[in-house]
């Protein structure tokens, strides 16, 4: 036992000597990942602002101008470009220069101030960029609604509070200000962690094989299990350090809180890193070259990506995908990560996910260990 430990230690030291010589990989894994997370988090967690907007005001009244001013006040658009002709709008849409255009008809002011007029506001959106177009639509609808409410209040003689009481009131839990960073960055962190661990583990054995040094290792007095453990320890250390670094980063830069137990989070993170690690080692043995290993990691990682709930929560997906999600470790990990960070959930709530993670870990880890050992022998 003692000598086995010594042999593993010497393998680990060998790995670290490799890492020091080829310092680009660990540097990228640790700093690059964390830095990228900040960049990506920053780019994706900002509300859409500064979108180009065109206005065709056929009314040219104080009222129509006030409507446009209200559009500007939403903060979604940059200063609107005023045009005189619908053809200009159509040309700009074709060239992709604007995300939205608003056309106010002649008689807009008259309709607004009359007893029962319905002013028509035409909106043209550039569907070739659906995400900003949707943001633009939401902003314009918001302005139209508040104008509608004001007009209705004037006409019916209700007071505005009375009207308000007909609309459902909204409360948001766990993320009261609906900060985008709080829900996008944990998912991005989870994703970065998965790719880091997978790539690192996948390159470890495929590289020795490609360079012909795996044979050398195999003829030395190491058992296959010792080689696997020796390969796994540095990858685990890098993955776990990376997680700590990224967690600190999202906490400081984006104010993502850790509302639950940090200890529980760290233990489960370690478990998750182990599961991904065993996946990575299996890929590493399966692949014939580093190039192949890398491409396989991209495929596996992207397939998992769907189930992390990044774009759409898993619970709202079609039923068959919900069932499939249960078999993806990243899905359980994201549920745990979000639960502990934002909902202050404890193990009493998260145990199904933790149990699934452990179960999947045992199955994947066991299969991977058998597969890798057989391949090495």
């Amino acid at each position, binding site marked *: 036992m003692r000598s086995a430990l010594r042999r593993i230690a010497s393998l680990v030291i060998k790995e670290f000597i490799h890492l020091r010589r080829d310092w680009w990989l660990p540097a990228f894994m640790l700093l690059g990942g964390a830095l990228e997370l900040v960049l990506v988090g920053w780019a994706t967690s900002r509300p859409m602002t500064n979108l180009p907007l065109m206005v065709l005001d056929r009314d040219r009244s104080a009222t129509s101008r006030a409507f446009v001013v209200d559009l500007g006040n939403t903060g979604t658009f940059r200063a609107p470009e005023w045009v005189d002709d619908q053809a200009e709008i159509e040309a700009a849409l074709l060239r992709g220069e604007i995300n939205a255009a608003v056309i106010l008809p002649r008689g807009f002011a008259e309709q607004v101030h009359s007893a029962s007029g*319905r002013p028509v506001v035409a909106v043209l959106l550039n569907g070739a960029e659906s995400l900003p177009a949707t943001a633009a639509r939401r902003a314009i609808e918001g302005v139209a609604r508040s104008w509608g409410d004001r007009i209705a209040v004037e006409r019916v003689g209700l007071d505005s509070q009375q009207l308000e009481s007909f609309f459902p009131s909204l409360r948001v839990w766990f993320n009261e200000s609906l900060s985008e960073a709080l829900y996008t960055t944990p998912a991005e962190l989870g994703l970065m962690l998965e790719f880091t661990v997978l790539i690192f583990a996948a390159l470890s054995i495929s590289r020795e094989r490609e360079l012909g040094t795996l044979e050398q290792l195999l003829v030395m007095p190491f058992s296959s299990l010792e080689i696997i453990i020796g390969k796994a320890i540095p990858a685990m250390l890098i993955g776990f350090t990376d997680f700590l670094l990224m967690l600190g980063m999202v906490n400081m830069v984006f104010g993502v809180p850790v509302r639950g137990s940090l200890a529980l989070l760290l233990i489960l993170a370690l478990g998750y890193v182990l599961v991904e690690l065993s996946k990575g080692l299996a890929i590493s043995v399966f692949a014939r070259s580093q190039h192949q290993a890398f491409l396989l990691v991209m495929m596996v990682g992207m397939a998992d990506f769907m189930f992390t*709930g990044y774009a759409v929560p898993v619970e709202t997906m079609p039923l068959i995908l919900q069932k499939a999600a249960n078999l993806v470790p990243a899905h359980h990990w994201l549920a745990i990560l979000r639960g502990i960070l934002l909902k202050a959930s404890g193990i009493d709530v998260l145990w199904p996910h933790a149990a699934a993670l452990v179960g999947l870990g045992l199955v994947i880890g066991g299969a991977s260990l058998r597969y890798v050992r057989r391949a090495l022998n």
Partner: protein
Amino acid sequence: MSWRHLLAVARKETYHILRDRSTFILVLLAPTLLLLLMAYALTVDIERVPFAALDHDRSPISRSFIQGIAAGKDLDFYGYVGSLEEIEALLVRGEIKAALIMAPDFSRRLLSLEGMPLQIIIDGTEPESGAFAVDHVGWRAEQFLRDQLSAQLQAMGIPLDTLQPVDLRVRAWFNPGLEPRVDLIPGLISMVLGFPALSVALALAHEREHGTLEQLMATPIGRAELLLGKMAPYILVGMANVIFMPVLARAWFDVPFHGNFALFFLLSIFFLFAVLSMGVIIGVFMRTQAAALALSLLLIFFPGFFLTGIFFPIAAMPEVMRLEALGLPGTHYAIITRGMFLTGVGLEVLWPYAVMLIVLGLAFTGVAALFFRKRLA
């Protein structure tokens, strides 16, 4: 520069790729397979958002309100709950994403036209499903209100239209339903077509790692011939994908293609040239495949995803990032793919982007050739 030399290198590289059958298949299929996976990951539709109801009123009116919502397919009724604590527990466990609370005087106030005391609670950690629930409940509440109150309002002499006087007529061009799938898939093409660039970086670093680059340099083959010859087979791989991907987009994801395919093919070659040159710079600069891989992910993969305007419009980015985006071939190509697929425009609109691709391609190849001499000297 001699064509014979260039072709000789291209043939050697092609032979390398083809010899390793499984890597060849992976390199060839990677862009299209990744497009398929990412399109699924990012555009899964929200189908059924689970919600619970806390009905303090327990009247026939409040029950029929909930029944109306439960009957629809967009929101999935979890069941009635007895207390706020139960709602909290369900939200924490993620079993529901939204909850409706009806006040004890729900039906009384509704019938006496005082208001509609309804509260919606959503899970802020997943705002996408929350916004979905708010939109759909709001819409149903309005319908319900109309059905319940129309007679009463008319008796009071208030026409229904006056409650929502601004008539907003929204039309989205190119993508009438504003479905993210329709414009994200053309955008993603610009991202996954960067994968051959990662492969060329790895292939060059591979020669470095195995010491065969020096052998090649000892032959009368020039630098430019060597670099272009290395790129040639990967450009072919990319071109094959330029044919696969529109077919996949049309047949599988129902994304239209309105442009001129021959022009699209030509502009895609410009893009491949530009992005592969980026890969060549990395391959020339890095000594090992692992390092080349790390740098490719950092410079090609992640920026290609987040900075090329696929998700986040360039117009809304801060100045610094906008400049960086202009230096990425993917930014210009994403505009071209969306133009070709959705707006169906031709060179009269797209020429500036085509010119940018050529300029970037030439600049990157020049830099690569320069580096190459320095690194080998």
